[in-house]
């Protein structure tokens, strides 16, 4: 029941969000100087007839609301137009790029969780010790390095100087892809891992002061149960929220990383599309970004629902 109302509420909110987002970007792009003519014509002299033909084809002379309504009508039917730059349907362009970004984001998330959670817990356990200080400081520094700089450093260090990893590309076979995406994923995961470490540490410390943990120990529960059933599970809640936000942030983070590692993912696509005034692509990407954030938030809510009975029974809202 709670699930259904939640889903319904989220869906409505998502529609509003996507509507606002699309109108906003559409308006922005329409208002910005220069139009698709320039892209279509290249940086060469053009004839007046050609320009007129293009304006007609792309309905550039229609008033803004009409253009937006047309776009919206098509979008609702799943037609996001044709890329001005490559003349492919936008959906194809995006579908083509999606696997790279998705694997990159997934890989990075995996690294984040696999490294961040244990490190955070260890730091909390050894609170104040050398290990804790080391981990905390390392997290701080990682958090402070701009992601693009981290990309460059990794690229130089591990791909060029040491030659352990390839310099660019996403690889073709699955194994190849893992090898190719390792450095980008590390670059992407760096700051997030640091966030998770901090969050996990704080959550675990907070937890350590809780009565129910002391009570669990007082009952002589085995260590494994205390760690898994109590520490990890209860600390998971705050970490989950951060994790979700990070997943959404992957989207933007991948922009820098893809750029630096020469990956043809969605981030590089966006940068390119902005530079080329490829409005249909930019528009679709922004919407996709919005949809992903909405979806991630929904996932977090569902996860809360699964983990926290208080939310499940509507006692509190997350």
């Amino acid at each position, binding site marked *: 029941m709670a699930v259904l109302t939640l889903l319904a509420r989220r869906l409505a909110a998502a529609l509003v969000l996507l509507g606002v987002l699309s109108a906003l970007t559409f308006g922005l792009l329409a208002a910005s100087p220069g139009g698709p003519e320039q892209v279509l014509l290249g940086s060469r002299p053009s004839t007046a007839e050609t320009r007129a033909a293009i304006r007609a084809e792309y309905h550039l002379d229609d008033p803004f609301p009409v253009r937006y309504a047309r776009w919206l009508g098509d979008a609702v039917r799943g037609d996001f137009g044709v890329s001005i730059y490559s003349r492919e349907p936008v959906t194809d362009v995006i579908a083509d790029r999606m696997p790279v970004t998705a694997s990159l984001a997934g890989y990075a998330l995996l690294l984040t969780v696999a490294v961040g959670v244990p490190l955070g817990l260890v730091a909390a356990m050894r609170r104040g010790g050398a290990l804790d200080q080391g981990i905390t400081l390392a997290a701080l520094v990682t958090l402070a390095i701009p992601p693009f700089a981290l990309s460059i450093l990794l690229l130089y260090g591990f791909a060029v100087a040491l030659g352990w990893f390839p310099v660019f590309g996403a690889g073709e076979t699955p194994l190849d892809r893992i090898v190719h995406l390792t450095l980008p994923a590390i670059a992407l995961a760096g700051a997030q891992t640091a966030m998770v470490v901090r969050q996990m540490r704080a959550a675990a410390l907070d937890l350590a002061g809780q009565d129910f943990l002391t009570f669990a120990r007082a009952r002589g529960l085995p260590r494994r149960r205390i760690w898994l059933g109590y520490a990890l599970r209860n600390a998971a809640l705050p970490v989950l929220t951060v994790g979700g936000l990070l997943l959404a942030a992957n989207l933007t983070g991948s922009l820098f990383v893809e*750029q630096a590692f020469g990956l043809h993912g969605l981030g590089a696509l*966006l940068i390119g599309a902005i530079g080329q005034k490829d409005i249909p692509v930019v528009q679709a990407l922004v919407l996709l970004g*919005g949809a992903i*954030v909405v979806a991630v938030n929904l996932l977090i809510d569902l996860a809360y629902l699964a983990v926290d009975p208080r939310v499940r029974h509507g006692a509190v809202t997350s």
Partner: protein
Amino acid sequence: MRGVLVTVLALAAVAAVAGSWLAPYDPAAQDLALGAAGPSAAHWLGTDDLGRDVLSRLLAGAGSALFWPVLVALGTTALSTSLGLLAGYRLGWVDALMMRIIDLAIAMPGMLVLIVVVGVLGGGYGWAVLAMAVLFTPGDIRVVRSLTLAQRGLAYAEAARTLGLRPARVMFRHLLPNLAPTVVANALLSFVAALVSLAGLSFLGIGLPAGTPDWGLMVEENRGLLDLNPWAALAPVILITLVATAATLLGDRLFETLSEGGAR
């Protein structure tokens, strides 16, 4: 540790204020014949491809590298604190409306929108800085609001209301000081995020005019020189990282100190 922290930030502040005077060379002075060269007695951190002194540019750039993030942090903090206090204290329709808008804003792919806005509209830093402040604010409003909500239910706040004090006085004199640890820590986090993000924008070629001695821009402009003079790109990266680390650490420390100080 604390000494290092304070030293780093103090040096950064000095560089930000007096960097242009301290610079051994005119940061814009070119020596095209010299081009990019490694560190030497004349140029401690070498030169970039236009033969400009890297150290001088770092010093001169400290101002812009730090000023804008500070501006973002101040703007964000002022805005989010007052709006968050208002929503959390007033509740009612003000709160409901604000929360709806914030829900919406938070669900936006923020950085993406920022890049599209600044990238497409072009224009300079002003837009980037403004957009960033707008981006950071909703999350902070939410935090301040929830803290306000918690504080307003406490006995001292109810006592203040019972005394018939004006709402503004209750909010700013009674509640605000008790939110200080979070507000201060958040302000520093905003500063760090802005510092790193603005550098990122420069990296994408969005923002400041070419040749401006700015740390983020220097990384972008000089990263092709890693073989000729690595310091031209590495030094600004190191500086950004150092300042950001110190600021985060300071935020953590301040949060602890302030919340201990206010502990009941």
